[in-house]
């Protein structure tokens, strides 16, 4: 607080509880590792040194009970859909979902008997990332969009 001390001697910093909590939340998004198909490899590339998700406070957790973001990266099949929903329900509130890639968004090129046409048929989705698979930059765009959304949320009074 050294800077403010000298310049604003008699002032009080005011903020809201909402923005403090939201600021903390947006800086420590912990997604559940949920790689389904090809997009999961790009998700891993995002986590590696070149793109480095850690600098945004994102650390992959292996269990849904410790995470607040679900990255659905890949094709959701009819056999997998109940598992996706179960993992989503196991996550504590507040929770967000990003559908990564064409398959999770809309089924992509797989319009078949076994493929769910978009993960939003089983769980609510906040952001959709297009691409097959999306570039890591597109992935980061979704993360920053999510951070903006988190800052607008009401914590104290819903």
């Amino acid at each position, binding site marked *: 607080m050294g800077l403010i001390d000298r310049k604003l001697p008699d002032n009080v910093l005011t903020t809201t509880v909402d923005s403090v909590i939201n600021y903390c939340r947006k800086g420590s998004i912990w997604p559940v590792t949920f790689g389904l198909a090809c997009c999961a490899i790009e998700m891993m590339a995002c986590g*590696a040194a070149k793109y480095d998700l850690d600098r945004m406070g994102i650390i992959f957790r292996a269990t849904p009970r410790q995470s607040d973001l679900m990255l659905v990266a890949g094709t959701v*099949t009819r056999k997998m859909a109940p598992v996706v929903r179960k993992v989503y329900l196991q996550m504590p509130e507040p929770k967000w979902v990003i559908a990564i890639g064409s398959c999770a968004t809309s089924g992509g090129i797989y319009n*078949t008997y076994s493929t769910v046409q978009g993960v939003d048929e089983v769980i609510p989705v906040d952001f959709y990332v297009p691409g097959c698979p999306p570039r890591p930059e597109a992935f980061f765009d979704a993360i920053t969009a999510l951070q903006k959304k988190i800052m607008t949320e009401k914590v104290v009074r819903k």
Partner: protein
Amino acid sequence: MINNNISEVITVNMGPQHPSTHGVLRLVVDIDGETIVNVEPDVGFLHRGTEKLAENRTYHQVIPLTDRLDYLSPLSNNLAYCLAVEKFFDVKIPERAEYLRVILAEMSRVASHLVWIATHALDIGAMTVFLYAFREREDILDMFEVGTGQRMTSSWIRIGGIRADMPEDFFVRLKSFTDKFDSCVDLYENLLTNNRIWKMRTIGIGHLSAEDVQVYGTSGPLMRGSGVDFDLRRDEPYGIYDRFKWEIPVEEAGDTYARYKVRMKELRESNKILQQALEQIPATGEVMTDDPRVALPSHEDVYERMEALIRRFYIVSKGFKAPKGETYQGIEAPKGELGFYLVSEGEERPYRMKIRAPSYVNLGALNKMAAGHMLADLVAIVGTNDVVLGEIDR
């Protein structure tokens, strides 16, 4: 008083949402205490109906589907499929395209093995290797992006050649990559090969003898790590692999450590092939065959000649007809023998496409490899199996 002779088998579920199952593999494990009695893989969580979809698409339209089978090395799948279709027509591939195909396939192998070493080491507990291996993989993906415009699923290998020639920058980058890559493999080996923890977790784990290899039909490093000297690139050569000099790494031990050594040597051997291909590749030349049965006429031709316009329109809208019959082409993909079996009824679409996926066959040996080991070793055994669920479930 505790009776130690009581043994009770309990069943544990592992996956499909598990960080170490490399996708959506589900394992039903019977354990007695900590010892594995039986492992039963439950596959199908990524079944997307690729083979069925292929029956409704023209031969060209199937290529993007093959990309997404083994998504760690999409271009190897393209190559296997295109070689199978080309067998119908006996197409002559231009020289430069043949070299570029080898270059792309070997780069895919390196990229695939890098993901394998990254995740395998991460599962066992060596985080550093993940970061280094992905650094080199990013170099390869950047090269793919320079050449093809896509990082992973580029569908760049087409029937009759490749989509387009590579820019000069691609070769410059590849040259500097091949020059430094051996030292990168040294780096991974420094971290792992003599690491005591790594050795304890891998030596003697997941044993597979040469007889087991024959019984289960495993291929690729799961075969060469058990002392079977077989590689489709040498023993049933396709493309122009007979022009390169490289060695096929074979280890006798048959455990996880032996397979680790095989794959590490394969990285170096692939690098050798890449270096030789860069030296031998003709400086200029066509990259797509001019065989009118499969290739699109060039744009110049389309603007000037009516027949070329009609031909182009026909191939794009309806596809080309393959002669009646069936073909099989196997290639040495990073995971093992990847084969495409195509049946044609003389139409524009394959009547049936069967994919012989190496991961699927290799996964069959999982119970043999895991039974009798501790539950914690199962992660190492799944890692050394190097499965990709995209090609198992298809």
